[in-house]
């Protein structure tokens, strides 16, 4: 149904990570056994991530972007479809291979304080993944922990190794989280809203850090965010998600300058840049709220809120991906 996105920079090797018709549904049970339906958090997602690119999955809360991240990490089992890492579907891996996969994928979470065990010092936090992956030599672990801290610009590393998370500022905590994600030398980093819990003044710093590490090591960076205004600076491609699906994807500037899907257009229109004139007028906001993922609407999931809805089409049939502009895909019947 959805054609996989083409890599726009034409890398010779295959994609690092792909999603093929990926579905992650959560069964909802009443009294522990009665099935009352499924929450379709991820509902038919396809994409390819190329080596060394930085992409952003953008959407509102409840659009399934965090469930997508966790499915990619193997924390949720896909209900249907598969995640393919370097050509091998995750579902086919045995447990040792799965563990090896986890070492190739780093995870940066939203809440840096929550992501660090409060009873471990930074040293222990950074040693843990290495211990789990069988690095027995303590000196080697220490060496790698120091390197990782230098990498995230926490220097001198020795000062931070013996600190506990609560002794660090939010920004420093998030750097430790990033250092932990890097310590196993991954190929891909998945960052779930890495800065939304941080102070505005630190956000840019952390995003720049992630970006520079990504460039330096040629990592693939998939970051999940609700904040379109920062995306331009830290990602090359954007996937816009709505109600468990990707509704639009394009290169950053293309998407920001020429949004095609009515939902993307609404999102962009709702974002304010600091301007005193904002206070003078009301913003255009589509009515209603995102649909329940338990019973998503038929057809295009945005159609109940869409002011350009084509009756008889949008409310009946799922829109496939169209390509109204070169390299710019959108799942909207307007571009039929």
């Amino acid at each position, binding site marked *: 149904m959805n054609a996989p996105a083409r890599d726009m920079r034409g890398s010779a090797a295959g994609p690092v990570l792909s999603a093929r018709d990926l579905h992650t549904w959560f069964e909802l049970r009443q009294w522990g056994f009665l099935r009352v339906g499924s929450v379709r958090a991820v509902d038919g997602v396809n994409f390819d991530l190329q080596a060394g690119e930085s992409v952003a999955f953008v959407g509102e809360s409840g659009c399934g972007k965090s469930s997508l991240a966790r499915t990619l990490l193997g924390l949720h089992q896909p209900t249907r479809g598969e995640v393919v890492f370097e050509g091998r579907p995750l579902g086919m891996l045995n447990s040792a291979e799965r563990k090896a996969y986890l070492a190739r994928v780093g995870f940066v979470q939203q809440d840096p304080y*929550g*992501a*660090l*065990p*409060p*009873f471990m010092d930074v040293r222990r936090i950074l040693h*843990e*993944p290495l211990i789990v992956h069988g690095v027995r030599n303590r000196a080697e672990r220490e060496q790698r922990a120091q390197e990782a801290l230098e990498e995230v610009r926490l220097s001198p590393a020795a000062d931070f190794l013996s600190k506990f998370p609560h002794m660090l500022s939010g920004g420093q905590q998030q750097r430790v989280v990033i250092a932990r994600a890097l310590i*196993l030398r991954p190929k891909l980093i998945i960052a779930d809203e890495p800065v939304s819990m941080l102070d505005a003044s630190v956000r840019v710093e952390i995003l720049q850090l992630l970006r520079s590490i990504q460039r330096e090591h040629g990592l693939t960076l998939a970051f999940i965010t609700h904040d379109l205004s920062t995306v331009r600076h830290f990602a090359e491609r954007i996937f816009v998600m709505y109600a468990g699906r990707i509704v639009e994807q394009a290169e950053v500037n293309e998407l920001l300058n020429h949004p095609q899907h009515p939902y993307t257009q609404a999102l962009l229109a709702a974002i304010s840049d600091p301007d005193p004139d904002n206070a003078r007028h009301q913003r255009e906001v589509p009515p209603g709220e995102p649909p329940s993922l338990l019973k998503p609407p038929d057809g295009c999931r945005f159609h109940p809120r869409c002011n350009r809805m084509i009756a008889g089409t949008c409310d009946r049939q799922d829109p496939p991906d169209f390509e109204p502009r070169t390299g710019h895909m959108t799942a909207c019947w307007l571009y039929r």
Partner: protein
Amino acid sequence: MRPLLEGLRRIGRYPSALVGLAIILALVGTAVFTVVTIPYGQALELWRGGETWRMHPVNARPAWVDRIAGNNLPQTIIVSSDDAPITEEPFVGGKRLRIPLEFDFDYGGFPSELNLFLTSSHAEREPFVRLTWETPDGRQLNLGGRRPAREERVSISQDWELERRLGRVPHVGLFAAPGDDGPPEVLDGRYRLVLDAITFEEDARIGADLVVYGRVHGLAGTDHQRRDLMVALLWGIPVALAFGLIAAVGTTVTTLVIAAAGVWYGGWVDAVIQRLTEVNIILPMLPILVMVGTLYSTSIWVMLGVVIALGIFSAGIKMYRAMLLPIRESPYIEAARAYGAGNARIILRYMIPRILPVLIPTFVTLIPTFVFLEASLALLGLGDPVLPTWGKVMNDAQTQSALYHGFYYWVLSPAALLMLTGLGFAMLGFALDRIFNPRLRTM
């Protein structure tokens, strides 16, 4: 583990915690001292009772009680022939001996008993001993003659003939000032029991120990079997602490691990654990222990095992589960899964350490409850048959109607020690609770 250490360092700010800690340390110190000075085997031997205690009074109260009351009741006096100026007159085929056993008696009460322990090293013919009691005012009473065996106890107190002659029990009559009317009064001064002996073998020897049993003894007094209660009170400390600590550690650790495993795996594992817990919670612990004690064994180790076994699926599981559930969902656990940490590692290294600081106060306050449980079992007669414990002391006191006879110290001292133990752990535990449970902390 730093938060733990930081918390412990903050104890200094809570005087109650320091007092509690001081009590606990004092108890531990005494326990160590006890175990070193009275080794386990010796303690069991002592507590078995018998001849070891023959020179101790029966049901004597603690000396300090008497001191406070200002009664000046007698302590036990032992006069040995080894210290006596013995005069010997040998003759052919034997010798004549005169052994004067002298002692000063100036107490505000009569002794509780009077015994003479004779030893004789004769080969075939027993010697003959004649006893004469000399009072400070110069009266002399003939206490009759004996032909002692190699070891002989002369129970002067139970000499019915003498009692009839004196008109009073001998240990009162022999010490009373002359006069028939009214209650007897103690005649102070130097008393002497003279042994005039004839041996019929030249190298035979005679030894004698006169025991004037007091009415007070030591710091703890004695019981109906002449045993010094101090032995049980002291040995009760290590037993109680060990029982409490092992039971608390055993139940807490297993409960915690099981609860964490249930929370982590969820599904049927959790369901089984929960149902087991619910069944176990309604099982009454004490009757089960009584049953085990009656039908199987009252050994303290068996009881300990049963207590731990019953304590594993206790209400604690529910509590830990409630604490661990949100932790299971916490991002750092998710991060650990994302870098490939296994189930055991997540349970033991990530979930349990998170709630340990909160559990420490509960753990500390749990210890005395097991101490009390052990004492209750002993009081019910299910105490360990050989170990001296506080519960056993109270059990003896109860069966001997101690309170009816006014031997209140017999009940009070073990009870006070139990309370002190409870108090120490409670004070420390509550202070720790304030340190580790920030919700209770006032800013």
